[in-house]
């Protein structure tokens, strides 16, 4: 992935970048491990009465040490320290940090170029989905037959928690990570994000958090479900500490990224790029980022208090100490429901973009689309307690929360109107992004409608805590968000690599995944209707057939994903060349060369209209 521009770029002076010249992912790992060991060593002497070195407090100090050491090693503190010392970055330093003239090495460094960060997020998302997907296969293999014990019961219980949280994290960054970084600033007509160094910080902080999360697999089972609510968490060992700390670190990453996204969109737009001329994906990124800034502090709070309960014996969530688990459940779902829309909205916004470009038509009612996304985000902060209908907490609030939850189907319905309205009377170009978009439409209607059942308390009293719920949110996350994310990947892949994602392999992957999703999760709905609870490692003979079918479907999804992985890897190096504007679109990211040069534009463009008018002369060019 070298460009002619990089070859012809003037060599930066040999001293530019300073310490950063010696820092990369390797030094970050070394720094993380060293400081983690140091912190653990001290904590063991100072605050571990058992001296075993395996207490909650030492685990937390070890995790904090890892994160701080990782930050030091990757170079996160270089800039601020130089600023304090009065030796702020020069232009040459900034160019070094942006990765100029460093070839592939810049992908392993604290690189500030938003396009490098975007590619880092693509790979990171794939890694997280890969590990989470492997766990999913272990879970489905265990459930292939009643009483099967492919993995031991305790390990299984840990897998369901780590699978859940890994996939949630992966999908939070799956669309916003790659594309709100790679293409969004170019779409705005900006040379980079508003805070390029914070952009690098958000990515590498995510890596540090992922390291902590994966550690939970190695230090004993996290057998508590992904929602990790007390009191069951009191029975979990240090895995719970690493998990909670991973979330704390993760929320730092999303907060930094969210602030950066919003600041970029509000302050970095080029001349003439009014808010109403912004591509709809930029609006989606901004709305999702704003919702994330509201939601994730609850996550930070709930896991921080959990850490305090475990390490220094506060009792925020401990009933015998005057606390309550219901407080924790409320805080968790105050985050947990908006988070679903933080995940969903960027995917939907990317699909609006794709629908317009691929049908050669303007987005159907741009303003309705924005209102739909804003409405969804706004309502999503008022629905959290529908996750708690059967807990026994505040039965009086059942009616009001049922009301807010069901109203959410109105803005959700708007998405279908906008998508189909955009396609209506277009000339639809059936390429890979379009195919995955149609998959999204088919799956999202099932996801939406099954959600309505669960919002109704008399039905929820029957279906809560069953596989019906699991199937519902897998239609949301796999059937809808993942399909949207893959459509977005296929759409912008040529801009990243200069090559098309292989059409044939991509379609094979689509059909395997699409059929696999229906088989797996329709059968899972039936398991739930028949009365199978969630999160069980072993089940009654009653649920034998539907589970076998779900497992077969899950293997089909896996094969679809492996074909896609193969397509991505081979197309990245050897795909058909695409040129700078393969879809003949009008938004700014297609107007720059491929791959886009450092700082994107030689001369910043002036915008006179929105990108949705498809004219004949543009098509012919």
């Amino acid at each position, binding site marked *: 992935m070298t460009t002619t521009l990089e070859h012809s770029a003037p060599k930066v002076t040999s001293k530019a970048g300073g310490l950063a010249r010696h820092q990369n992912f390797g030094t970050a790992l070394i720094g993380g491990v060293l400081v983690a060991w140091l912190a653990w060593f001290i904590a063991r002497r100072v605050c571990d009465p058992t001296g075993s070195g395996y207490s909650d407090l030492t685990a937390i100090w070890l995790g904090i040490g890892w994160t701080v050491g990782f930050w030091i090693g990757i170079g996160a503190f270089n800039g601020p320290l130089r600023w304090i010392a009065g030796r702020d970055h020069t232009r040459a330093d900034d160019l070094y940090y942006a990765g100029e003239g460093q070839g592939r090495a810049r992908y392993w460094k604290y690189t500030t170029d938003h396009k490098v960060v975007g590619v880092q997020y693509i790979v990171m998302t794939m890694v997280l989905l890969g590990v989470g997907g492997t766990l999913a296969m272990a879970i489905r293999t265990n459930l292939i037959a009643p009483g099967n014990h492919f993995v031991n019961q305790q390990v299984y219980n840990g897998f369901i928690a780590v699978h859940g949280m890994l996939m949630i994290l992966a999908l939070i960054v799956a669309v916003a990570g790659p594309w709100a970084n790679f293409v969004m600033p170019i779409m705005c007509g900006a040379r980079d994000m508003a805070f390029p160094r914070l952009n690098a910080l958000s990515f590498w902080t995510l890596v540090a958090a992922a390291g902590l999360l994966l550690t939970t697999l190695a230090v004993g089972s996290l057998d508590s479900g992904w929602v990790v609510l007390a009191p069951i968490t009191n029975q979990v060992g240090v895995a719970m500490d690493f998990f909670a700390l991973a979330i704390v670190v993760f929320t730092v990453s999303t907060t930094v990224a969210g602030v950066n996204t919003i600041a970029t969109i509000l302050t970095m737009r080029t001349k003439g790029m009014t808010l109403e001329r912004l591509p709809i994906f930029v609006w989606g990124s901004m709305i999702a980022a704003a919702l994330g800034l509201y939601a994730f502090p609850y996550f930070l709070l709930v896991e921080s208090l959990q850490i305090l309960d475990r390490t220094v014996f506060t009792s925020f969530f401990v009933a015998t100490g005057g606390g309550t688990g219901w407080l924790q459940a409320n805080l968790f779902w105050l985050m947990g429901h908006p988070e679903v829309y933080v995940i969903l909205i960027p995917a939907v916004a990317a699909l609006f973009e794709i629908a317009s470009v691929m049908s050669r038509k303007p987005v159907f009612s741009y303003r309705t689309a924005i209102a739909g996304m804003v409405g969804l985000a706004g309502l999503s902060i008022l629905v959290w307690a529908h996750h708690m209908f059967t807990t026994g907490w505040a039965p009086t609030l059942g009616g009001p929360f049922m009301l807010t939850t069901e109203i959410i189907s109105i803005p959700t319905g708007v998405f279908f109107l906008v998508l189909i309205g955009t396609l209506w009377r277009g000339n639809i170009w059936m390429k890979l992004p379009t195919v995955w978009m149609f998959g999204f439409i088919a799956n999202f209607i099932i996801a939406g409608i099954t959600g309505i*059942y669960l919002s109704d308390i008399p039905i929820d009293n029957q279906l809560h*805590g069953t596989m019906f719920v699991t199937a519902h949110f897998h239609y949301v996350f796999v059937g809808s968000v993942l399909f949207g994310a893959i459509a977005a990947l296929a759409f912008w892949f040529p801009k990243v690599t200069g090559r098309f994602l292989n059409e044939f392999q991509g379609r094979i992957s689509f059909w395997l995944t699409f059929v696999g999703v229906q088989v797996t999760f329709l059968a899972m709905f039936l398991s739930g209707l028949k009365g199978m609870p969630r999160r069980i490692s072993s089940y009654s003979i009653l649920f034998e057939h539907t589970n076998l079918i779900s497992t077969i479907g899950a293997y089909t999804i896996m094969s679809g994903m492996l074909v896609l992985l193969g397509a991505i890897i081979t197309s990245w190096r050897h795909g058909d060349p695409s040129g700078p504007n393969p879809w003949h679109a009008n938004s700014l990211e297609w107007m720059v060369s491929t791959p886009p040069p450092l700082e994107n534009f030689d001369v910043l463009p002036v915008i006179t209209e929105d990108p949705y008018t498809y004219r004949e002369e543009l098509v012919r060019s």
Partner: protein
Amino acid sequence: MTTTGQKKSIKSFYWTWLALTVLGVALSIWAPGHFMPRSMSNDMHLSILTIVIFSVSAAPVAAGVYAATLYVLKNFRYRGEGVPPAGADFRGNNVMITSWLLISTVLTIFLLVWGLGALAVDNGSTGRNPLVVNVTGQQWVWSFQYAGTNVKTNELYLPLNREVEFRITSDDVTHGFWIPQMGVQVDANQGVITTIHTTPSVTGTFDVRCTQFCGLNHAFMVTQGHVLSQTDFNNWLTAQPARA
């Protein structure tokens, strides 16, 4: 400007919509009763009925989206080579948007009214001399204590057609008390008593399952229950040894 993206006959859309709606309604009426556990209480009747009602009202919506998608795929796909020419250049349709919003609002209000009505009767007490059963969850067994007696069991016995009031708590972590055949579910929380009511409507055997992840043997926190006729129940109760 191009002249493609013309209006096309919309008849096939309506026919597909109608066919899919009929299919959806048929499925909605058949599937819940077929797949869900046998109903053994009015609450379960209500749950199943509500699922059927919601499915029937959702069927035309889903069918409409599918029919529109199929119509779009059939009529607006570009079949030529290379880049398609520009499509119809309209940027919205206020009549369409307004009617879409109105219809989804009306449907939502209908679901709400039905849901709130159902909620008002679901799991509620009739106040007519209920049998009180104290339910305790602990890792990983259920125990049932019949109020006013010294009887304590690990399988649940209930009399036919008499209201039961479950008072549920936990000795350790949170469990979820659920009777799949009766449509009642509430968590068992340590230090708190949660209450639900139901009235068994047929005799027979049912299940009690735990729906909150509660540790190692969560999957096996299952027990059976039996609905007996009033006299059988009284005979059973008096025959039990006290196990206070």
